[in-house]
């Protein structure tokens, strides 16, 4: 009944597509943060347990559904039960929101990549002030890397209410990012299948290079020791377990419909169980690998800052007391300080307030996640390395590959249902559909290039996908197990692949995973309700640091709209199908 569905040229392309989609920026900038916050080496325990109990079963479920139904998310769920067409629509809506804001990260990566070809790197020096006697004030108060991010890249406004104008430089980079994505998805699996070889493999090459470089940096061992020393008491902290579950859940990209889309282009006899295990293990190992690299870079940066701090104290004391240059070193600093305190008490008490207490621990404890880690902390470390242009280019190229890989999955989740639908694909060829989707996303994405754009980005990042995905995956699991029937699904899989379904998967799908998701959902809801008003971090240019502010009411309304528009699709879809059926039954009854 359907003319040949495009297939992956080899199963390897499918595995690479899944890896390239799952291994994204979250592995690089969220997992190291969680590791640091929740006990270093001991965080691996809840992480691996959640991987086995939640990650692998849910991934297998999505891949199996996609491979069995051989349609995108809307069609697949409609086949399972007509009342579930809302689930597919919800997945597409969430993917749409995600692709809107996610490509802005690629635009920023392009911006930094293009600026890496200069000597010195533009974020390593502060620009001069008006009369060229000193540096720009904002840059002095913050640091040069923060200044470059907040002022030169984002040109951020002090609050979300002041939207400002669209910045043409990031807008150009965003247009380029969308053109690149369009180029990759233009021909469907034919073009995507070739691109994923690059987007899956190149980040690993760069990570390997960075691993070698990172481990040989001065002070890297400080960071690694700090990260891997397990703090066993964190195992008792429920937040550690919840965050491990959340990280696994979002890292694999479940619920967006991308995995269903990818699996729908598979041969029916493909062994998706083997691929599930491979993809999930590679995803988690990449997270751990990336955090080793991140922590050696952290250690280098912390040691560098600690030593500069000490040097500043030494310079201050040398200048105030006119000591011989070179007399004060790191080793004799404490003795000399006590000697000076006793010998010149009045002068010492004048100078004392300016002497900072330099501590390596406090430098290491500054845990950062998200765009702050990628664009501020890493660039700070890179600017202190030798041949910093090379390292910068490699790093941002890797970020770009990771981001584009995830975008391919996101757009596949939107396009596969559209191209599957007979109505749309009869009017437009698939190049035109892809082009339209990219154009619409790009136009809306220009909102994120305005001066207040980063604040809207944070809204989308925090709220567009989190609650909705949990609900979607919960409904998916319950639907397959109880609505469609676990035995029926099991016999379908056996007929399709030839292998029997292991009892482990059945136990997980039936009981453990849905319970886990429900508890995550309850936790998130209670968290939102308890914290009351939502707040955000705004950049204050006069102080050179972030300050916390409340969201204005219209921003809160938009957050509510984001969450509601995807979650409401599920009940609305069921209701719509019910009404249509009722009307049809009413018609046939009246005819007869």
């Amino acid at each position: 009944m359907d003319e040949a569905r495009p297939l992956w040229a080899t199963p390897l392309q499918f595995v690479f597509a899944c890896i390239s989609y799952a291994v994204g920026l979250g592995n690089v900038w969220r997992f190291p943060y969680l590791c640091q916050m929740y006990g270093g080496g001991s965080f691996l325990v809840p992480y691996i347990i959640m991987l086995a109990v939640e990650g692998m079963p849910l991934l297998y479920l999505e891949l199996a559904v996609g491979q069995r139904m051989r349609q995108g998310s809307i069609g697949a769920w409609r086949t399972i039960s007509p009342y579930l067409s809302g689930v597919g629509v919800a997945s597409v809506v969430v993917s749409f929101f995600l692709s809107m804001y996610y490509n802005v990260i690629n635009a920023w990566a392009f911006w930094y990549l293009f600026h890496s070809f200069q000597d010195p790197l533009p974020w390593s020096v502060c620009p001069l002030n008006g009369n060229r006697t000193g540096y720009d004030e904002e840059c002095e108060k913050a640091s040069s890397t923060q200044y470059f991010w907040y002022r030169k890249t984002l040109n951020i406004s002090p609050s979300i209410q002041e939207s400002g104008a669209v910045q043409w430089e990031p807008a150009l980079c965003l247009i380029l990012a969308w053109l690149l994505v369009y180029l990759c998805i233009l021909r469907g699996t034919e073009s995507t299948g070739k691109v994923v070889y690059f987007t899956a493999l190149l980040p690993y090459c760069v990570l390997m290079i960075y691993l070698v470089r990172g481990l040989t940096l001065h002070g890297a061992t400080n960071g690694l020791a700090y990260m891997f020393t397990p703090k066993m008491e964190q195992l008792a902290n429920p937040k550690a377990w919840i965050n491990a579950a959340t990280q696994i859940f979002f890292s694999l990209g479940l619920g967006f419909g991308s995995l269903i889309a990818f699996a729908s282009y598979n041969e029916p006899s493909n062994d998706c169980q083997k691929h599930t295990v491979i993809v999930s293990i590679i995803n988690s190992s990449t997270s751990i690998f990336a955090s080793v690299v991140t922590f050696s870079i952290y250690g280098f940066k912390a040691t560098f800052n600690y030593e500069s701090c000490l040097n500043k104290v030494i310079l201050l004391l040398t200048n105030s007391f006119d000591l011989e240059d070179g007399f004060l070193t790191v080793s004799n600093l404490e003795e000399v300080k006590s000697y000076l305190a006793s010998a010149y008490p009045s002068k010492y008490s004048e100078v004392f307030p300016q002497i900072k207490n330099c501590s390596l621990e406090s430098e290491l404890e500054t845990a950062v996640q998200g765009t702050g880690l990628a664009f501020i902390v890493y660039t700070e470390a890179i600017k202190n390395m030798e041949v910093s242009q090379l390292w910068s280019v490699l790093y941002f190229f890797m970020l770009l590959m990771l981001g584009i890989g995830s975008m391919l999955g996101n757009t596949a989740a939107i396009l596969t249902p559209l191209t599957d639908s007979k109505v749309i694909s009869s009017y437009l060829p698939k190049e035109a559909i892809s082009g339209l989707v990219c154009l619409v996303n790009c136009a809306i994405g220009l909102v994120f290039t305005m001066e207040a754009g980063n604040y809207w980005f944070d809204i989308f990042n925090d709220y567009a996908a989190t609650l909705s995905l949990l609900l979607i995956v919960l409904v998916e699991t319950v639907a397959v197990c109880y609505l469609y029937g676990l035995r029926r699904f099991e016999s379908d899989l056996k007929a399709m692949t030839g292998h029997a379904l292991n009892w482990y998967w059945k136990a997980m799908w039936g009981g453990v995973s849905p319970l886990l998701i429900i508890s995550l959902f309850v936790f998130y809801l209670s968290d939102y309700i308890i914290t009351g008003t939502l707040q955000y971090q705004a950049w204050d240019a006069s102080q050179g640091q972030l300050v916390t502010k409340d969201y204005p009411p219209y921003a809160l309304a938009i957050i509510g709209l984001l969450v509601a528009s995807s979650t409401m699709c599920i009940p609305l879809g069921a209701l719509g199908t019910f009404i249509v059926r009722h009307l049809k039954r009413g018609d046939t009854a009246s005819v007869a």
Partner: protein
Amino acid sequence: MLWLLFFLVTAIHAELCQPDAENAFKVRLSLRTALGDKAYAWDTNEEYLFKAMVAFSMRRVPNREATEISHVLLCNVTQRVSFWFVVTDPSRNHTLPAVEVQSAIRMNRNRINNAFFLNDQTLEFLRIPSTLAPPTDPSVPIWIIIFGVVFCIVIVATMLLILSGIRQRRRENKGPSEMEDTEDKWENTITIENGIPCDPLDMKGGHVNDAFVTEDERLTPL
């Protein structure tokens, strides 16, 4: 008498050059930080060179071409190395205004630094801000050039893919109709060799080959 004069002169000089005196500037050198092992010792010869450089800077100011080395006074040299200096006028009774000294030093800062193998950070004149070198801005920012290159490559590749896709679809649309034409042609062609039409046996149903059928009776009588 001479000793008295000497003491008087040094006393006056001492008064002119004092820490925080009017028109006096503090200088701070960080030799070991700048030069490490190759740091030279700061002695009176180096001080003489310093005085010479300051005098040279003042001589380049209009109206001050008569400044001599002896007009530059140094005092309070510490181990740091740091000291104060003033520049007096030819009468040696007054010090030159701070503003003039400041602008003179600013204009010749580079040469003073180079004379001592130091830079703005390691040879500091407190209260004389150094003019920072502005970053060299090329006329077209570099990032736009690279952006332009990548942009053009992506556009060209996209165009190629779209065009080849359109061409492929046109070929597919023509393909099925072309296939039907050739099949009809095969049925209607008659092969002609040497002007004589050859009728392949299987095209015209069945033909009895007369050469093999001679008489009715082929069966041998019993």
